[in-house]
């Protein structure tokens, strides 16, 4: 899977979620709820870094540096077109597990806000 030009070689799972703020109004008769506009959807992508499956065979360290650089990029640069995702990501967190359990595979998690195309950035098709 690619986010912009940066590769996550192995995707394990993707969690996507959306929510709306909700205000419950109590009255003497009965309660009613008021739902506000939906917030921007949040995405969590869990995958693995691995030199053999990376298309340019980058080392784990290079892959980790590339993945962490996603946080510094504007969302318009972080395009994604993978399974049900077609849009751009505003990357909020990149976590690479450094537990020393393997020198071949490292687990990584990306937490981002998802901006679906063409609702957002219509001139920038992923």
């Amino acid at each position, binding site marked *: 899977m690619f986010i912009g030009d940066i590769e996550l070689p192995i995707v394990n*799972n993707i969690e*996507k979620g959306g929510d709306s703020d909700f205000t419950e109004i109590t009255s003497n008769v009965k309660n009613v709820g008021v739902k506000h506009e939906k917030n921007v*959807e949040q995405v969590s992508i869990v995958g693995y870094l691995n030199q053999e499956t990376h298309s340019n065979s980058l080392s784990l360290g290079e892959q980790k540096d590339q993945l962490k650089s996603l946080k510094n990029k504007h969302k318009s640069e972080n395009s994604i077109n993978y399974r049900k995702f077609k849009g751009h990501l505003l990357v909020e967190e990149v976590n690479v597990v450094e537990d020393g359990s393997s020198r071949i595979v490292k687990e990584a998690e990306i937490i981002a806000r998802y901006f679906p195309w063409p609702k957002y950035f219509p001139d920038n098709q992923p």
Partner: protein
Amino acid sequence: MTYFGDIAIPWVSEKDTSVTKEVIEKNFVDKAPDVYELNTNLESGSYSIVLNEQYHPRNESFEEQHDAVLSMPSRHASEFPVDVGGDIGYIDVTSSTTTSTPQQEIDEGEISIYFYESDEYSPAVKSILDEGRFSNFVVEPVESLIGFPSFINVVGETSDYTIPSEDGDIDLYIVTSGEVLEFNSADIVEAEQESICRLFDGEDNRVYSDSKDIHFGSNIENSLIDITFNGNSSSIEYYSGSWNDLGQVELASDYGYASDNSNDFITVEFINDNGASIYRGFPCVEYNFEGESTFTHTLDGSLVSEEDYYLHYQNTLGDDMVMVKKSSDGLFFDSSSAFGVEQLNTSKEYNIFIGYVPDGIPVEDYARYVYYLDKTPRTMI
């Protein structure tokens, strides 16, 4: 199988809801402590769900099922009648998440909900007619229509017209601005499954959300009218006992998405700034566009009459059609194979409606209902 309105979920694996009541305890210097009760909160909690492609009544793909679940927070509670685990009522979904694991045959999800019991709460729609539209032409009285499947009971109202749809008969109610129609039915879930507005992405995938992309071949339909977006034009079909061709509209479409996607109305917008809307219970389509000097509906037929805000014409089957414009800009034109509006200002945005007039509704009245047609918000009462 559990239905949340028109969204089918293969399995609900866990339901965890609770009702809470707040109390305030006060201590007093001159008497014993007392506890005061506040109103009981709405029942709330979460449902855990499982998605599967083999076990779905419409054989929806994972992509469609994920899109359906993720669309739930942006839809109104009245669109989600449920009959699950002994609970019969409506759920207001405040958040939904889905997890997909590429290697697995099932995907999982969770929705957070508030619950409205059906014996205490009823859904309703409110008619809001846009005052800003009244200034262009004098069109009176100010009325429009709201449609429901005929098996739905609208409390205290008698339908004014009944028309056939592909899903069954639809009752139409004449409404004025601000009117609230409360409705119920013996099967509350089925009420949100028949004659609703639906969007497909061009590959026969249902699109439930207001964010997923659509493209060439996408279509919107409400069991009365069906519009397919073909790139350079869109083709229209209408239902009058069977589906009939209603020609093409020469407006280009490309990639787009639904800016509104509910059971009562859908608006699709394309990158080129053109778009279209349909409404539940109404055999008409609203086109919105800008940068065009001419709006053309290609159809073999003949003109019947021209009024200041609408054109009345017939196709070769003798069925009545109207084209309604909200703006005073532009002039209607007609020929034996095309009808439309010309001399439009290319720097302005316009809305033009094309509608099939069902049997039994006077054309003049129908054109007026279309002129005031607008999106109807839902509420729970």
